[in-house]
């Protein structure tokens, strides 16, 4: 093999190898960046889904609290309604006032 041929073939091989390495690095870079971006995207989506679910659950919780609150309000109203109050006051020995006395309190 002549020196000229050797130089030629070795030079070509080296250049080809360099190109292939560069291409491989580029592809690897693209894969890595894509993976990172996909990871970020999936994380965001997952977070979004999680937050949305929590939000929806909390809205339901608020609705349930409002329902419980209304139930308590009506229960208080029932317990303090006039028929119930009258029944309780009679049971406690109260009776309707027969006369009312006013006391005049002069200004000091």
């Amino acid at each position, binding site marked *: 093999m002549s020196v000229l041929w050797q130089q030629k073939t070795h030079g070509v091989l080296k250049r080809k190898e360099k190109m292939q390495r560069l291409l491989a690095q580029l592809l690897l870079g693209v894969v890595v960046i894509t993976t990172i971006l996909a990871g970020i995207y999936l994380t965001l989506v997952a977070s979004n889904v999680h937050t*949305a679910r929590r939000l929806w659950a909390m809205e339901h919780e608020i*609705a349930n609290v*409002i*329902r419980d609150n*209304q*139930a308590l309000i*009506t229960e208080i109203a029932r317990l303090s*309604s006039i*028929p119930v109050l009258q029944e309780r006051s009679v049971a406690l020995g109260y009776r309707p006032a027969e006369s009312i006395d006013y006391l*005049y309190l002069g200004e000091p």
Partner: protein
Amino acid sequence: MLHGPDTRQRLIAVLLIAALLPILGQLVRLQVLEHSQHQSEAETLVRRQYALPEAPWGVIMDRNGDLLIGNVPVYDVGAEINMITDTVIAASVLAPLLNRPEEELLATMTLSESAETLVWRPLTNHVPPETAQKLRELNWPWITLSPTWERYYAEGALACHTLGFVNADGMGYGVQAFQLRFLRGGSLKRVGPVSGDTSPMPDELTGGNLTPYPGTDLRLTIDRTIQAFVEGALDQAIVDYNAVGGTILVMNPQTGEILAVASRPNYEPHRYAEYAQNGETMLFLDPAVSIAYEPGSVFKIVTVAAALDSGRVDMNWSYHDLGHLEYGGVPIRNSDGAVYGQQGLQGILDYSLNVGVATLSTRELGADLFYKYVRAFGFGQTTGIELTGEARGIVHLPSDWDWSDSHLATNPFGQGIAVTPLQMAMATSAIANDGVMMQPRIVAERHYPDGRIIPIPAHELGRPISAETARAVTEMMARSVETVAKVAQVPGYRVAGKSGTAQIPTTGGYDPQQVVASYVGFGPVPNPQVVILVNLDRPDVPANMRWGIHTAAPVFQKVMARVLTLMGVPPSDLRAGP
């Protein structure tokens, strides 16, 4: 045959491409050619209407903040009947829980052969949370529970006509129907893709607010303690006088606030559907605002006030009462047929002289002036109170085709003219309030969900008479109570009032037996805080005891005494100081 690595490589590549081509073809078919079809199918599968449980309607409180109408959380129960595995067992288990006959439930839950695959049917409405919990514990995936609300009437039938109700179609009576646009809460519904548990997909939640909007609370001018006392007094009066029904209305003449209004017959608002089913819808009409009646002699205070205010007569005016008068072809007689001789305005009110007021209207006022005052006092037109179905009453004016001269002679003592109890109380309030007529009102404040409290201001409707006239009529009415109508006197307080006993019009005349007995008055004088009107419909007592002074006046006295105490108005001597 396959020699060399290159050839094998080429063959594998060809095979791989051949295998990928059908996949690629399918992708093109699904994603490009049939894209819209599959997209709509997918959307049909995942798109559902979704919403948060609806918010409650606004509550209604009395003037002191005590709850009159609240909301009870309940559930509507339904079933996806195509998913039921054993309908017979399901019906037998659900029947006692839902309080429905087993056979009826079975029929509801049975899937007809022609039915589609997905069939949902309602099983019952408004079950309490305890029952809903028992249904959940059954763990039947086909049962659906939709949270909703039921109106709760804390005091039962108290103030039923005023509070009213609203049915599922949004129609109803009372303040609830009138204020429906404020009271109604609800939920915001949206249609979009949902997940398996029917919660919306995340993107949906960013599309706008879905938080349910609660209704606006109302604080009324009604005082439930006064209301309860008034209703008790009315019930007692109906029993005492064997009346068919009646109305008691209590209002503040200075503000127009209705403190209490009770009418009989009444109803229980939460059972409105049953009444409607039984054809008893007339019960829903509020006699205080929706049913006009001929007021009778209580109307004389309007005639006397008009005559005085017009300047056509003064306090020294008098006429000679012959016991009868003929005008427009109609004979007018005093209610007792007696002759009273020389009488003035005070005598007219003391003895309730029909001839006297007819003389005032026909001889002194004339039609134009008389009806000008009738209109100025608000008769023949609605007051604008926040209640549904308010009646205008019937006032025949000289410009009307059916008006005749006789109206000018009979209207002054409340015959041939129809008014609502509310109109009569409002006109009396004008006399009590130095001639200023306030618009009757039932809503004191609106409490908005965002925390704003908007008071509804008192509204002056007009000044039908001057302050001087109002004071003069008040003084005459008070003297009348002190001298003639002593049964209406309230110990410790000076009150003014006027009784009435109105015949009831029938076809072609008046019922010879039946009357509406009434009394209207106010106190304390001076500075009246309260106007009370009492109507008793057809009291069935001996004829000589049927008069308003014998039936309605004692009720007025009883209510006035208690209302003044409940309002903390001290007796006159105490107000004057030691």
